[in-house]
């Protein structure tokens, strides 16, 4: 029951910090310079967290909606020729650093949430695509062959055999993508996207380590809890 208790403690801590940030006071007060505020007070941590999580969720969902269908297409016999192209595009998204994506997109879409979401989306495509590709490739040829031989249409083979069997790998790709997005979303604050990055940057600018600790700590805790929750889903999907 160890992991369950740890999980419960983690969630309780996250909720407590968001709802009543003052519980942090005894832990981070020593980090603040003398006379400086210990708790970030320009916006509520809960609101920043919600905005942060919404960006991560939005970008990850968008990445899944693009990368999974793309992986499906390139694993069909008729789409196999596009696999190198798809790989190239998806890799490009991963190669260009999110900061560079921000620099490119801000002039196009302006400051705020959008450039950040685009950067997170581009960065998150690769793990989801590779996970889905690996999962679909792992589906045993015999399963596909017998499914077709029984009279399932290609769409039915996909939905009732290939996707369920590939689900653990697909979820694993989503997990990696979401964790990376959770951390990376903090840079959104450099282009005025609301999020926990704001707290960290405020701390860096005013030399206030207490701000950095609360912003960074919440992001880290949220990333760990999310990774854990997705890993549980993954294990569930992997069971026969």
């Amino acid at each position, binding site marked *: 029951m160890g992991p369950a208790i740890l999980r419960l403690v983690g969630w309780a801590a996250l909720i407590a910090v968001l709802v009543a940030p003052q519980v942090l006071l005894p832990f981070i007060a020593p980090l603040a310079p003398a006379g400086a505020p210990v708790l970030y007070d320009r916006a509520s941590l809960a609101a920043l967290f919600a905005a942060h999580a919404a960006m991560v969720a939005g970008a990850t969902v968008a990445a899944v909606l693009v990368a999974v269908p793309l992986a499906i297409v390139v694993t069909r016999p008729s789409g196999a020729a596009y696999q190198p192209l798809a790989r190239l595009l998806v890799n490009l998204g991963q190669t260009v650093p999110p900061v560079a994506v921000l620099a490119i997109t801000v002039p196009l879409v302006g400051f705020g949430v959008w450039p950040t979401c685009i950067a997170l989306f581009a960065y998150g495509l690769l793990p989801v695509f590779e996970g889905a590709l690996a999962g679909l490739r792992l589906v*045993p040829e*015999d*399963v596909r*062959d017998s499914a*077709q031989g029984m*009279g399932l*249409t290609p769409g039915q083979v996909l939905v009732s055999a290939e996707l369920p069997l590939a689900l653990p790998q697909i979820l694993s790709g989503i997990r990696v993508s979401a964790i990376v997005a959770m951390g990376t979303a903090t840079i959104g604050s450099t282009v005025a996207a609301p999020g926990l990055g704001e707290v960290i940057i405020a701390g860096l600018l005013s030399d206030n380590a207490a701000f950095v600790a609360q912003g960074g700590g919440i992001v880290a805790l949220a990333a760990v809890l999310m990774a854990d929750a997705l890993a549980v889903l993954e294990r569930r999907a992997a069971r*026969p």
Partner: protein
Amino acid sequence: MDPMIVVDAVSRRYGDRTVVDGVSFAVPRGAITAVVGKSGSGKSTLLRMINRLVEPSAGRVLVGGRDVAEEPGPMLRRRIGYVIQGIGLFPHRTVFDNVATVPRLLGWPRQRVADRVGELLDLLGLPRSFGERYPSALSGGEQQRVGIARALAADPPVLLMDEPFGALDPLIRRKAQQDLLALRARLGTTVVIVTHDLDEALRLGDRIAVMEEGRLLQEGPPEELLRRPAHPAVAALMEGARRALRLLALVSVGDAAEPADPAAVGLAGRPRIDAEASLEEALSVLLWAGADSLAVDGPPGGPPREVTLRAILARARQE
């Protein structure tokens, strides 16, 4: 009677490689035709053209008198059972759900699906409690039986099998072959089975088709292939020197038995053999015992019968 399956001048080319080259043969209703050949002889491709998993480049295939090209492949395949060496059970679904696949595709009501799955598990000698298990919890032989149950679920008139017993160990394999013969006798299913194992082909096939390099060398009853091979490669496959024994393996003791004189000396003390055994086995028992006749067991209630060395030798002789 019309044949169940007609393969008419069927070819399949991949680029400039001809994998199946103008093959024609017919499978009588309720018969088992065994297609034998080495790997790469085109036998699997030939089988897959019957249910259109592979489209012929030329020629046509009739099943039950209808050209298979007339209806969409998936619809056609729901009426044709298909069993492969790798079985290909859905690992994420229970045995019940696996067997229920085709009936559900056909939109059967829930109760009818459940009844049918139970019936099939009984038919294949699997306990009904297996329905809740996942394939990974079954042995290879049990999985293969589930695979056959799944293929037979919608009561297809035709069953196609591609090396179905290739992955089973010899004892279980023998049992699976006997089960297939029993199933065929009970259901009257027309079967085409692809195998590289001549013994399996001779044991199961009412007719045997020999493939080499995409061509059909000879097709006919096993005895005809053994006695009159039409091609040196067929003769080689039948292993000329052993063909007398192979002929004996085709005949059951019951078919060669003669009424025994109850007064004959020592009838009761003679070695015995089951009427279901083959003459090859009977010969082996005779050689071992140094006897010249065996008492035949069964069928129950019949008059006493014997099988003699003389009768066995006559069956094995060149015509």
